[in-house]
C-alpha cells in the first residue's frame, strides 16, 4: 500500500510545483521571457504574507488575499519599468538583468529578515488530514492541489474566454498588428506579469505554510517550476500541471528510497523526459 501513498503524496506535491510553474509558463507563452528571479519572487511573496499575517494579525489566507493586489502592482511595475527594456532579439539582457534581480531580491530579504528559516502557521490546519479509503491525506496538500487546478482552470478561462486573453494571444502572435487593433503591447506585457505575480502569491502561501523557508531558497523553486514547464510542454497550462505532478511523484519515490535522493530523483526525471520527448509531453507548438 505504501507505493499508493507515495503516488498520492507525489500528486499533491505536484500541485505545489504546478503553482510555481503556472506564472512562468504564462509569461513565457506571451512574451518569450523567462524571469530567472521567478523563484525569488515566490519567496518575496511568502515574506509579504508572513508580514501581513503577523503585523495585521490576519489569518494567512486573508493575508494572501491582501498580498495579491500588492504583488500584482510589483509585477506590473517590474515589467513596465524594467523588464520591457530588455525585450528584443538579444537573449543576454533579459537573462542577465533577471539574474541580477534574483541576487538583489535574495540579499534584500537577507538584509531585512536575516537567514533564519520561517514558517507561516495556519494552526490546526497544518496537521489536519482526511481519510480517503485506506490513505489519509493532509488538508493543506489537498488544498494546494485544488488551488493549482483552480488557478489553471482560471488562467485558461482568462486566456481563451476573455477579451484580455485575446489581446494576450494576439500580442504574442504579432505585436505590430496588435497595435493596429488598439492594443498597447507594453501595457499588455505588464498586465501579464502582474497576473503571474498573483499566481506567485498563491504559490507562496502554500510554500510558506507547507515547510520552512528562508531568503535563499528561491533558485531551487525556479528550477522545479522550469522542470514542470519543460516536461509539460511549452505554452500548455494543463501540460504544466502534468509536469508538476511528474516531478512531484519522482521526488516522493526518490525520497522513499533514500531521503537524500528526493531532489536528485526529480532532476533525473526531468532529464529523462528531455531525452525522450525534447518538446515535452504535451507540446502545444508555441515556437
Amino acid at each position, binding site marked *: 500500500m505504501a507505493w499508493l501513498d507515495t503516488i498520492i503524496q507525489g500528486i499533491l506535491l505536484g500541485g505545489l510545483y504546478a503553482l510555481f510553474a503556472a506564472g512562468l509558463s504564462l509569461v513565457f507563452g506571451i512574451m518569450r521571457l523567462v524571469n530567472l528571479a521567478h523563484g525569488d519572487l515566490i519567496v518575496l511573496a511568502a515574506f509579504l504574507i508572513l508580514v501581513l499575517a503577523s503585523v495585521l494579525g490576519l489569518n494567512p489566507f486573508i493575508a494572501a488575499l491582501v498580498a495579491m493586489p500588492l504583488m500584482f502592482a510589483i509585477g506590473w511595475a517590474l515589467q513596465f519599468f524594467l523588464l520591457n527594456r530588455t525585450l528584443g532579439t538579444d537573449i543576454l539582457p533579459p537573462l542577465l538583468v533577471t539574474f541580477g534581480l534574483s541576487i538583489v531580491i535574495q540579499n534584500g530579504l537577507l538584509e531585512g529578515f536575516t537567514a533564519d528559516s520561517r514558517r507561516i502557521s495556519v494552526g490546526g490546519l497544518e496537521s489536519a488530514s482526511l481519510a480517503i479509503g485506506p490513505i489519509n491525506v493532509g488538508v493543506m496538500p489537498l488544498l494546494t492541489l485544488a488551488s493549482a487546478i483552480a488557478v489553471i482552470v482560471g488562467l485558461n478561462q482568462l486566456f481563451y474566454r476573455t477579451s484580455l486573453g485575446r489581446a494576450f494571444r494576439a500580442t504574442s*502572435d504579432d505585436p505590430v498588428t496588435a*497595435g*493596429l487593433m488598439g492594443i498597447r503591447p507594453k501595457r499588455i506585457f505588464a498586465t501579464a506579469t502582474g497576473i503571474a505575480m498573483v499566481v506567485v502569491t498563491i504559490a507562496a502561501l502554500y510554500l510558506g505554510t507547507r515547510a520552512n523557508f528562508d531568503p535563499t531558497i528561491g533558485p531551487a523553486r525556479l528550477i522545479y517550476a522550469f522542470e514542470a514547464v519543460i516536461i509539460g510542454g511549452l505554452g500548455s497550462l494543463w501540460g504544466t500541471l502534468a509536469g508538476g505532478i511528474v516531478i512531484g511523484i519522482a521526488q516522493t519515490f526518490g525520497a522513499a528510497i533514500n531521503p537524500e535522493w528526493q531532489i536528485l530523483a526529480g532532476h533525473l526525471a526531468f532529464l529523462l523526459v528531455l531525452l525522450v520527448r525534447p518538446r515535452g509531453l504535451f507540446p502545444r507548438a508555441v515556437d
Partner: protein
Amino acid sequence: MALLETRNLIARYGDFQALFGVDIALDQGETIAIIGANGAGKTTLMRSISGILVNQPGAVLFDGAEIGALPAPDIVARGIAMVPEGRKLFPSLSVEENLLIGRYGRAVDGHWSLDTVYELFPILRERRANPGTALSGGQQQMVAIGRALMSNPRVLLCDEISLGLAPVVIKDIYAAFPRIRAAGASIVMVEQDIGQALMVADRVYCMMEGRITLSGAPSDLTREKIHAAYFGVA
C-alpha cells in the same frame, strides 16, 4: 476641408528614403485608390497613416487634427482602421476572435457588428470557430476586412487586397465594397491590380519611387498615362 490628408509626407527606413514629400487627400464618403509598381512606396504610405511608422505631427491630418506622430493604438481609437498587407490574421485566434479583436481599441457601436459582418461575408459564419489562418487566401482577406470594420471606422485603409488572390476571388471581395461605402466609411485603397482599383475608386493616385506621379478621376486616365506613370518610361 478634406477628412484625411497627408502634407509633404516624408518617410525613411534608416538611410533609405521611401517617400519624398507625398500629398494626398480623402474627402468624406469618397474612395481613393493608390496604384504603383512594387517598391513605389504605397505600403510605406499606409504604414505612415496607420501609425505603424511614426512621422512628423503635421504630416498627416484627420478631421483637421495633426495625427502624424501618433502610434497605431491612438489612430485606430480615432477611427482609422487598417487592413494590413498580407492580411496578418492572428494564428492563435479563431475567425470570430479575429473579428472581435478588431473592436479592442475602439468599441464604437454602429452599422458593423458580428452579425452584419457575417451578412457581408456569409462564408465566415460557417468558419467562425476555425483558426484564423486555416482558411483560403480569399476567406482570410474577408476576415481581415471584417476585423477592420468591427471598430466602425470613419476611414478604412486597405493595403494590397488582391495580393496573391485568384481573379474570381478578387471580384467576389470587391463586390462587398459598395455596401462598405454605403455604411459610411471613406476608403483609401492601395492596389497592384489596376483594373479593380479603377472600377471602385472615385479618384486615383499613381506612385513611382516614393512620389505621386499622376492623379485624377479614373475616366480621364488613359492607358498610356498610366503606363508612363507606372513604369516611368513612355
